[in-house]
């Protein structure tokens, strides 16, 4: 399940009947159901592995939280069309970009109502923005309103017009404006009277569901700690959300999420029909589901290898080792890093670690972001001979008594490699890397260490940092500009290979230049071209050696219909749009 919405098509139609609500029509291309096939009523059940923490949208910190689920993954004025990836108006009806591209004025859709029947107006966005921005509240969204050190401002023009003012043109302007509004008539009085402390006390997990208000398709009806949350249909949502045939959405009466702390238990629940959807993570789970389907025990649809997932596994080498000039010089050498990339058998990683269902990676852009991948950027695939050659060029030509490569001074090619203990996949990737390296004479000492220690080492600053190489992964990075704001710039805190505070390699400087250039370009096509250039430089420098990631698979019980057409099932768009799902049987 992922985000969704829109319908420029229907706009003109609805504007004609302005007295009624201006409806948003969910395009027929977003569902595999035929028009008119959908039935009304019933419950849809899915599962989540992590417990819910709060119902408070200003305190929530993790994906799939209750506020997120109530608001279609936290969308608002605009949303993305999964068929094109472009931003389209949702709770807005239209927008206008100023000439210097630093202001966007949104017209808010009229006739929208909160689940308690109050109208939705510009004040709701303003209040939501104010609370998110209060540092004492500690909202996770606060940082999204910062571009560098400058703040994005939101102004109310009138009840149905909002203006976003950016410090400079920004690639993520629409993503920033897409935050979900929350009712000002609920949060406002508390915030005015008691400030941040009042907000923090609201909407905890034991809040009376009757007090929860949302604009989204479903609103919390009941929560049982550690067990499940049940949402019921918000009747006001259907007044301005229609399917292609003009029927109000959502079709379902209720939506339920069970908390299942164990993947085996989740599989059992899916196999026995207790939950309607799951994303199997391993080839073993897929095989079990397939077997049950083939034996006629389970009426379900399974989509295997729908897309790679949006996360990465990589090796990063430490450029700041003042105490060990030999290693520092080595790790700062692009040739060395390219040699290491040649030593990573990505095919074997996919086969052994992901059971054959994974995708090799060569650069920082996730393979699932197909529009962004520059196919011509340099790649350094598994090739021990090429690695040997590169290492020889660095002076490692002799073998020492134990059979490891050494340079003219007899210094052995040896370094430490760490990853977080308990992460089985990374430990296995490390093992494959270590064993391949040993074959050509590179000695890697692998030690799994505690996650927090690892992060501490990775994020440490200065000219002498305590690690050699680390295998870790990152998630995040969007469709608008898939490069990390604190990864690429040399002063970013996730510029993990070099935290001296300045760029050390001219190619780092160039990457930083392209990063900011792309970030401040509003035009999508131009931005993609800049992204391509960035990837070329990145391929030359290879600051991080990317390895591979697993693929996204999804399965659903056929008693629920209205899923995405195959074309748009992916780790980005998920398997369906919640308002379009319906109970077929």
């Amino acid at each position, binding site marked *: 399940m992922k985000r969704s919405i829109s319908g420029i098509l229907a706009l003109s139609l609805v504007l004609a009947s302005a007295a009624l609500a201006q409806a948003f029509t969910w395009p027929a291309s977003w569902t595999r159901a035929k028009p008119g096939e959908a039935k009304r009523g019933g419950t849809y059940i899915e599962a989540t592995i992590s417990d819910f923490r709060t119902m408070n949208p200003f305190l929530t910190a993790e994906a799939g939280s209750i506020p997120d689920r109530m608001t279609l993954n936290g969308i608002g004025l605009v949303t993305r069309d999964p068929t094109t990836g472009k931003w389209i108006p949702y709770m807005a009806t239209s927008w206008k970009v100023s000439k210097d591209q630093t202001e966007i004025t949104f017209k808010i859709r009229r006739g929208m109502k909160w689940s308690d029947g109050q109208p939705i107006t510009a004040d709701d966005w303003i209040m939501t923005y104010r609370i998110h921005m209060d540092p004492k509240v500690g909202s996770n969204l606060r940082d999204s309103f910062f571009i560098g050190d400058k703040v994005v401002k939101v102004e109310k023009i009138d009840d149905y017009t909002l203006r976003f003012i950016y410090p400079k043109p920004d690639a993520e302007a629409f993503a920033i404006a897409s935050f979900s509004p929350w009712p000002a008539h609920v949060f406002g009085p508390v915030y005015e009277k008691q400030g941040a402390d009042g907000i923090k006390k609201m909407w905890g997990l034991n809040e009376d569901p009757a007090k929860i208000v949302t604009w989204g398709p479903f609103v919390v009806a009941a929560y049982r700690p550690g067990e499940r949350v049940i949402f019921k249909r918000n009747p006001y949502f259907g007044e301005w959300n229609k399917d292609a045939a003009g029927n109000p959405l959502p079709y379902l009466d209720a939506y339920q999420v069970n908390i299942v702390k164990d993947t*085996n238990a989740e599989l059992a629940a899916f196999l026995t029909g207790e939950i309607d959807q799951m994303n199997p993570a391993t080839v073993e789970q*897929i095989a079990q589901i397939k077997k049950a389907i083939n034996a006629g025990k389970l009426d379900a649809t399974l989509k295997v290898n729908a897309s790679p997932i949006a996360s990465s596994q990589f090796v990063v080498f430490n450029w700041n080792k003042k105490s060990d000039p030999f290693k520092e010089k080595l790790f700062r050498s692009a040739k060395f890093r390219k040699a290491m990339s040649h030593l990573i058998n990505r095919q074997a990683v996919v*086969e052994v670690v992901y059971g054959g269902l994974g995708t090799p990676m060569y650069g920082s852009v996730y393979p699932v972001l197909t529009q962004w991948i520059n196919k011509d950027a340099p790649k350094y695939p598994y090739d021990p001979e090429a690695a040997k050659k590169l290492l020889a060029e660095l002076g490692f030509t002799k073998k020492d008594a134990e059979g490891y490569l050494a340079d003219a001074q007899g210094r052995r090619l040896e370094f430490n490699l760490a990853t977080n*203990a308990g992460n089985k996949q990374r430990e296995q990737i490390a093992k494959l890397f270590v064993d391949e390296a040993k074959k050509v004479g590179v000695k890697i000492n692998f030690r*799994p*260490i505690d996650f927090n220690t690892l992060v501490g080492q990775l994020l440490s600053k200065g000219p002498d940092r305590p690690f050699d190489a680390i295998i870790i992964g990152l998630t995040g990075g969007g469709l608008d500009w898939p490069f990390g704001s604190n990864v690429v710039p040399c002063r970013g805190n996730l510029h993990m290979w070099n935290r001296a505070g300045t760029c050390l390699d001219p190619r780092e400087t160039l990457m930083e230049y392209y990063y900011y250039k792309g970030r401040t370009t509003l035009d999508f096509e131009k931005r993609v071209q800049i992204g391509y250039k960035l990837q070329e430089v990145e391929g030359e420098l290879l600051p991080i050696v990317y390895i591979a990631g697993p693929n996204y698979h999804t399965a659903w019980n056929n008693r629920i219909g209205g899923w995405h057409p195959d074309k748009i099932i992916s780790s980005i768009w998920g398997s369906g749009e919640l308002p379009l799902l319906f109970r077929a049987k």
Partner: protein
Amino acid sequence: MGEYETKSHWQLVWQQFKRHRLALLGGGILLVLYTLAAFAGFFSPYDPNFYTLSPVYRYAPPTPIHFRDPDTGRLTRPFVYGIKKTLDLNTFVERYTEDKTRRYPILFFVRTPHHPYTIFKVFKTDLRLFGLGEKATAEGARLYLLGSDNFGRDLWSRMVYGGQVSLTIGILAVLVSLVLGLLLGGLSGFYQGTRIHLALPLISRRTWSYLAASEHRGLGRVFRVAFRFVLLAASLAFWVGLGVGLIYGLWVLTGYSGLGEQVVETLLLVPAALWAFSRGLFRPFTFDPDDLVMRLVEILAAIPGLFLLVTLRSVFPSDIDPLMTFYIVVAILSLIGWGGLARTVRGMVLSLREMDYVTAARALGVREFGIILRHVLPATASYTIVYASLAIPSFILAESGLSFIGFGITEPYTSWGLLLKAAQDGGFASFADRPWVLAPGFAIFLAVLTWNFVGDGLRDAFDPRRRR
């Protein structure tokens, strides 16, 4: 009148133990398990970390062993066929079939020069009980008694090696708790009721007369007086430390909390500090060692091992071998696990010290520590042995629990818990498609069961009332 055969205590115990058939059976199985683990290299056909990437034998089933020649139909020396791997595109699972064109005999006492191993980390050798030989291995043939894991590593070899960790971890942990539990439980019971002065009053008259007076003369007297002044300095340090600590607490609390609440803290802490100082001036600080140990037991019992484990694991320097780290962590865990034993030993000692033979030893002028060591502790031996034999299996189970939550041993090392965790990760596929991966679970089961049998047998053998 017939003659009575005199038997020593241990002979009697052994005789009784032999009558307990389950215990004997358990002992025999344990002997086999420990032998397998001790000479793991000899009993495993492959190195536990041996795998190839072309092809990857991911989750291969046990290799069928044939005893009959397919051409003549006659019995022949056992052999296996080569492996053919195909991918089932329907379920995405690998399928393995026999390649009947290639035949490889199983060799006994085979040498593997490219994969040597060591026994007890000392003797280096490459002799293995059975295997296909390195030539057959290079050609892609495998002898998987229990199938392979996702790397294509031989599960039997890994299980034999895993036993080294799983079977020894309990013994190590129990040893540590035994030493501590016996010592502290013994001391606690033996000295129960004795009051020990931790700190002296600072200005009472008794203190000063105590410091000055001595029955010794000359140099001895000088030492005595010097020693007592050291004692006084220690007392001073104790009282000042206590007072300063309380005042610091007061300062810290009032410094960080809201103004309105300061009153509460002041009202609470000021009298406490005053009380500490005044008490330091006039009265000694004494305690009962038994109280101290028993409260310590309660405090330690309150620390959940899981938290301690997380902390310990992360504060260890990362360049220590993970296997070593794991052993140290378990040893430290058992540092807090001696409470139960200490409680029981204390109870036993409490009654023992009133026994006639102990009183006699005391009257004879045997030093107190000698009494504990020579007379009291041996009397608890039977309980101790039983305790140990029943605690070891619980540690074997604990190891699997730790692996389950990801706090166990890590690659490239292996243990039964880690292997069982891998089976658990496979989920239902482990039951339905490859039940042989459950073998490590069976090994855990067997070890725990047999240790319990042995423990039961020992208990019955030591207990005169249960003799038959």
